[in-house]
């Protein structure tokens, strides 16, 4: 069985930064990535990121992935990236089973593990929601921005969070019409600068609206939507029909972390973090010593915070392995203060509440 010092599962911004951070301390890391290309969500993001300059704000997501991968290459063999390699099991003694290229199946034992597996998309229940032409926002983005394929001609976007609004804008950039953006909530969830970009392109944003049903025989032909009252109950008589060949569902993400549950980490449902999350210390260590979590897998947030958590988890995982750099405490505090800063505003309020609920008892060290 192959033995490694540090195993990182997932090569999104959190996993890549964890690897860089650990390697900087002197540790050796192996990154497993189930996709054929590294970068996680970043490779689909053609828009400029908000956030702080320290987390590459104002760069486009896809370029941030390039930047991180270039840095990774500087560490040579200290960091190994294995693509088309899915972690399928996580057992006692940190044994991880891996399916590579859908044919090889083998085990790896790691002294330390960082789980940076990201998130999965939630779906929405309505009649005929299985018609071809109804996609998740992630699929539309992948088709359009990774493969250069138009998903259709006229789109109804369901969900006015950051993802729904940003993907709508990218659809317009690809020359695809966006009929409207709906959201059941009475207010737009996205950052309003992003919503305004869409509004001034003439795309109506309909808050307090949801899908009544999808219409079509072999594929989507139209969508019927209706308004919701303050109690989120549909108001009969407010139905509107949009003739669209694509419906894009973007109603949120949930943390993807079954591997940690399988390993026996204590999990808790925390609505503010959008699902089941592992309890952890402020250093991103779960209840199982040497097993860390970072990025969306620990609660849905943003790439900026995923990167800061990755740096923190990589630093602390390396320290567990005995690689304690002279400036360990200074670096640890720096990452913690970056996270605190990113989460300090009104939009970070939910995250702050969620973090408190997901902290291991005694997990907060005195600073």
């Amino acid at each position, binding site marked *: 069985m192959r033995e490694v010092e540090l195993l990182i599962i997932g090569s999104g911004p959190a996993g890549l930064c964890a690897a860089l951070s650990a390697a900087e301390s002197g540790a050796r890391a192996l990154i497993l990535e189930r996709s054929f290309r590294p970068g996680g969500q970043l490779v689909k993001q053609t828009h*400029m990121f*908000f956030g*702080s300059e320290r987390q590459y704000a104002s760069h486009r997501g896809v370029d941030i992935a390039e930047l991180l991968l270039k840095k990774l290459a500087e560490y040579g063999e200290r960091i190994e990236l294995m693509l088309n390699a899915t972690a399928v099991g996580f057992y006692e003694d940190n044994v991880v089973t891996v399916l590579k290229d859908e044919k090889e199946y083998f085990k790896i034992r790691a002294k330390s593990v960082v789980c940076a597996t990201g998130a999965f998309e939630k779906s929405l229940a309505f009649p005929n929601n299985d018609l071809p032409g109804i996609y998740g926002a992630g699929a539309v983005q992948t088709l359009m921005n990774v493969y250069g394929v138009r998903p259709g001609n006229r789109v109804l976007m369901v969900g006015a969070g950051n993802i729904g609004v940003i993907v709508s804008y990218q659809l317009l*950039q690809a020359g695809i019409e966006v009929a409207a953006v709906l959201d059941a909530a009475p207010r737009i969830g996205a950052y309003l*600068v992003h*919503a305004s970009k869409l*509004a*001034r392109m003439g795309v109506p944003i309909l808050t307090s609206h949801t899908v009544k049903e999808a219409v079509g025989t072999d594929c989507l032909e139209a969508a019927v939507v209706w308004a919701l009252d303050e109690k989120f109950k549909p108001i009969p008589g407010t139905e509107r029909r949009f003739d669209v060949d694509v419906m894009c569902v973007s109603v949120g993400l949930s943390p993807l972390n079954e591997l940690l549950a399988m390993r026996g980490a204590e999990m808790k449902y925390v609505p503010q973090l959008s699902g089941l999350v592992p309890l952890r210390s402020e250093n991103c260590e779960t209840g199982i010593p040497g097993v860390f979590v970072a990025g969306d897998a620990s609660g849905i947030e943003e790439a900026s915070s995923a990167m800061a958590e990755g740096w923190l988890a990589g630093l602390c995982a390396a320290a567990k392995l005995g690689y304690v750099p002279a400036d360990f405490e200074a670096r640890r505090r720096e990452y913690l203060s970056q996270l605190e800063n990113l989460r300090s505003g009104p939009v970070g309020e939910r995250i702050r509440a969620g973090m408190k609920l997901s902290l291991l008892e005694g997990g907060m060290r005195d600073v």
Partner: protein
Amino acid sequence: MFEKTGVAAPEMVLEKFPSVERINRGPVAVVECYQKIPCNPCQTACPLGAIEIGDDINNIPQRDEELCGGCGLCVSKCPGLAIMIVDGSKSPDSVEFRIPYEFLPLPAAGETVLGLDRAGRPLCRAKVLKVLNPPSFDRTPVVTLEVERKYLYTFRNFRREAEEHG
């Protein structure tokens, strides 16, 4: 309403505009960022320190109309495309706008386009004076347009005429 539609109310927009006297002196930035979000590239982009966010990255950017020289460096750096430059010094009847525009094909200098308001509604004709798209703008081109002065507070976007039909 802003939080339901994404369209800022006229009085909110007005508050972000520099004084007419300042606009008539030369180019100056209008920073339409209304919400506390963790974001600060505008502050870092400005060589003159004219945009201030401060220690808390969530603060709303404050632009100092006297410090701002209207260079436009912040325009293509803002991920929210929330910044534009207005210049009322060229003529008493018109205003020059510099706005970020991320759609292809780009317009050409001399072209007449359809000016749009903040809800994307047709507003006026606008004349394209210049299109800048250097590598340093990182694929956020900036288009300079001449617009009748009465649309100073309502003009915000444009559409190429050819696109109107299909």
